């Protein structure tokens, strides 16, 4: 039964992640007064990329990208989606905090093998950015854990359905806003698109990926988008009782993210760190203090 649920969850996460990628391209196009590609364009891209030749630079080049994808897929198991929660019976948040770094780490291992200067710049930016958003993320997690007195996401969702959403209740409001502020950095969207930045460093860590490798990177991005938004919905918007309602909540958050993505230019890496360590960290810290005082 658990195995079946896990399969279901991965397939659902894949479909929702790909749908989000297509939707983001469509909405971006409409905002820029274009007609835009069909909403299935990412799927077409994936089909094409799997049918294309690809060149490998060594053993680590192959395994790093698989590690990165596996890290993102494993995180899906620990996030309850609607009623489904195959592996998140206890201690979900700590596991997610650990595995979240596997994505950048796998890409770094893989890119290091290719020895391309653009990749090194992209990877170093990715890790510096991770350093930037991990600090507020840790404070947010601490505030949520302290408020509910548990590290299990299932328990947190249950308590929220009994009372208010934590985004609507006062002690966790500031933490929720801080999470929304770091969400673009977490997913690598604008204004934190500096990891890829095709115009300056030739798409950064993805420079040497072609064919099947690029398909795996796209899949990893789809799963990672799903995980980042699903975490917000679970922690702050009260989860949901069925997958359909859960998807609706995710859609609202994602469209908000795309609007921000469409209108903002790119930060430089120093500006990004300055921003991330100033406003979201400040809000998350005040939120943590409020939680400690109130409880």
């Amino acid at each position, binding site marked *: 039964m658990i195995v079946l649920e896990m399969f279901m969850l991965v397939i659902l996460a894949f479909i929702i992640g790909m749908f989000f990628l297509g939707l983001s391209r469509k909405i971006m196009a409409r905002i820029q007064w274009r007609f*835009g590609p069909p909403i299935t364009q990412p799927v077409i891209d994936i089909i094409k990329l799997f049918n294309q030749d*690809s060149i490998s630079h060594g053993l680590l080049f192959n395994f790093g990208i698989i590690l990165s994808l596996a890290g993102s897929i494993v995180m899906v198991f620990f996030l309850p989606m609607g009623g489904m929660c195959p592996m998140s019976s206890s201690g979900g948040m700590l596991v997610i905090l650990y595995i979240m770094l596997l994505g950048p780490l796998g890409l770094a291992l893989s890119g290091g093998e290719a020895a391309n200067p653009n990749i090194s710049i992209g990877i170093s930016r990715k890790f510096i950015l991770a350093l930037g958003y991990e600090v507020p993320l840790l404070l947010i997690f601490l505030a949520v854990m302290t408020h509910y007195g548990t590290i299990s996401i299932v328990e947190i969702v249950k308590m929220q359905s009994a009372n208010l959403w934590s985004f609507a209740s006062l002690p966790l409001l500031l933490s929720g806003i801080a999470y929304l502020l770091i969400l673009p950095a977490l997913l690598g969207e604008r204004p934190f698109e500096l990891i890829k930045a095709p115009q300056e460093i030739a798409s950064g860590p993805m420079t040497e990926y*072609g064919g099947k490798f690029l398909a795996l990177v796209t899949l990893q991005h789809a799963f990672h988008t799903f995980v980042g938004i699903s975490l917000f919905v679970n922690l702050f918007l009260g989860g949901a009782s069925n997958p359909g309602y859960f998807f609706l909540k995710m859609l609202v958050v994602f469209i908000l993210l795309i609007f921000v993505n469409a209108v903002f230019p790119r930060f430089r890496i120093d500006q990004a760190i300055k921003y991330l360590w100033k406003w979201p960290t400040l809000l998350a810290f005040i939120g943590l203090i409020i939680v400690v005082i109130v409880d």
Partner: protein
Amino acid sequence: MDRNQLTKWLKSPSNMGHKYSLDVVYFCTGCGIIEIPPSITARWDAERFGVKPVATPRQANLFLITGYVSVKTLKAIIRTYEQMQEPKFAVGFGSCPINGGMYWDSYNTVNHLDKYIPIDGWIAGCMPRPEAIFVAVTHLWTLIDKEIADGYKRYRDKYKYYRANQEKVLGELEWPPLFPEDDKK
């Protein structure tokens, strides 16, 4: 456009994928590049055909050479073409890559690009309008459908001929052959 016909997708997913997802590396050699920004932005919007610019040749499968080809640029063109992953398509844009155009008697331009890399199609004109790019893309679709957009196969089969031509213009090449002779046998 048969992008939404599911039966065709099930019949040959690879062909349909290559047709409707063309990632282009625009090679900015000359004045032709000025026609690319309007064609990929709001006025003509190439993305509705699935044509999208990418930053590196590794991710691309369509190579658009825009403008005259000088001897120095030819070196970069060959390297870019060889870095792309098969199946790959190359299209010459403007009259200069076809036969030299207005630079036909210049001392440092290459007159016939298809002697050095295989070209799947040409867009004639000086300059072609952005609409011509879309005509070329739809034409490339029919070529892919009939499986006669096989420039990359020609490059593999007649590599000796292309390499000899390249060496005639550029002298000794700095990189090893893409398809060494010993591998074939």
